[in-house]
């Protein structure tokens, strides 16, 4: 417990230091840089033309589709991680069995990938 705590103290500290670095840089800029209240400077860059509408609109489904496929495979990767480290000397089970079980698992996902491929979900449109 002590080791774990000691290790992740550094992680916490790293995030704090990172935050402070960014903040100090922004603060330094706030102090040193000029600041104007001219309204024209607040317009967004639209190649020199005035923007017509707000930019944030509803965008196509395809991003959502990729996100779903991503989550499936990422979760799968998370499942594979513990297996990958322990299947060789699996306590209480023959390692070959652990391996072939994972082959089946990956195979099912492979079928899923093939299906998505076939359906054209992987084709960016």
């Amino acid at each position, binding site marked *: 417990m002590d080791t774990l705590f000691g290790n992740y103290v550094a992680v916490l500290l*790293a995030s704090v230091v990172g*935050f402070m670095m*960014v903040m100090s840089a922004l603060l330094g800029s706030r102090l*040193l*840089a000029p600041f104007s209240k001219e309204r024209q400077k607040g317009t967004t860059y639209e190649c020199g033309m005035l923007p017509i509408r707000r*930019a944030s609109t509803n965008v196509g489904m395809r991003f959502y589709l990729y996100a779903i496929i991503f989550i499936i495979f990422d979760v799968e990767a998370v499942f594979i*991680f513990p297996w*990958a480290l322990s299947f060789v000397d699996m306590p209480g089970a023959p390692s070959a069995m652990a391996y072939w079980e994972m082959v089946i698992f990956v195979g099912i996902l492979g079928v899923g990938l093939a299906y998505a*491929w076939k359906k054209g979900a992987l084709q960016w449109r």
Partner: protein
Amino acid sequence: MNNDLFGFEINIWLDAAARMGLITGVMTVVVMGLIYIERKIIARFQMRLGPTRTGPMGLMQSLADALKLVGKEDLRPAGADPWVFELAVYFVFVPVFMMFVAIPFALNWEVRVLELGLFYVVAVSSINIVGLVMAGWASDNRYAMIGGLRAAAQAISYEIPLVLALLAVAMVAGSLNLTEIVAGQGRVPLIVWQPLAFAIFYIAMLAEMGRTPFDIAVGESETAGGPHIEYSGIRWSMFFLAEYAALFLLCLIASAVFLGGWAWPLGEDLGRGWQFALTAIKTGLLIFSVFWVRVTMPRLRIDQLMSFSWKVLLPLSFVQILVNGLVLVYDWPDLLLLATGGAGVVLLFVVIDRGVRRPRPRPAPLAAAESEAVA
């Protein structure tokens, strides 16, 4: 557990703080150096001189840039979402910084030995994409939005091959602890057993960093800067710093995981100086190769980029994992790993070559194209 710094037993908080301080200093210097070196190297590739005016051989260029950027007016578009816009900078920069905790620079020279180091690195590295998406969304700019969405799509697509490539290596190494992985490569670096994993990792690494040929998010000729188009001054430079820090980090990880970090070929016997030098040389070579790719490669298009990840890299990395498992379970000779990995690399290049030569059908005429009248 080594909470002794320079041989003194100290409080873990103080120890961590001291190490982080050291890392902060090192990182700042290295990143500034990298910016200078990249400019010099790219200039040489392009038959230019690069920075020459600031200090001897232009060495002070990065410092001058930093000073200029701090003194530059910091604009925020009136239509931007203030909180998301401001916070995006932190989300981009802090995760990169956090990754340094697990990197082994030399024997017993790291901030902390994390038992799940590789896993931690992978997990934290994907956070900064959130920052890019936030930046793109909050800027109230169409280019930024397209850039942000591109960044997200690209990052999630290459995340999986990256993770699986590292996983394949972890299987062979038998650990997720970065220090153990490095120490285990005293005789033979893992790139020998896992060339395909290295190839996949290298490509996915370029994509994760958003460097050429995968720089479609920034894509200067299309989206004119992508997610950080509306950022200026020091806030923009934070994106820039994060990019270079990520370059440094991912090359460090690649050199540790695949090239044997400080261990290969001299082992643990030699002094720390040599180990640091080895790490630096390997990382430097990788960084140089990234620069080299940057000056010679055109940019991919988004559909090519996505299909390459999902249709080529992902299946290949799965096959690699299954093959690794087979060899390890039945205790076949390691040479088989080399053979299959090598065959995989050849296959990868063949697939790329075939894909390039294959003609792409003209996109089907759309409804808008058929009508003659101009809007």
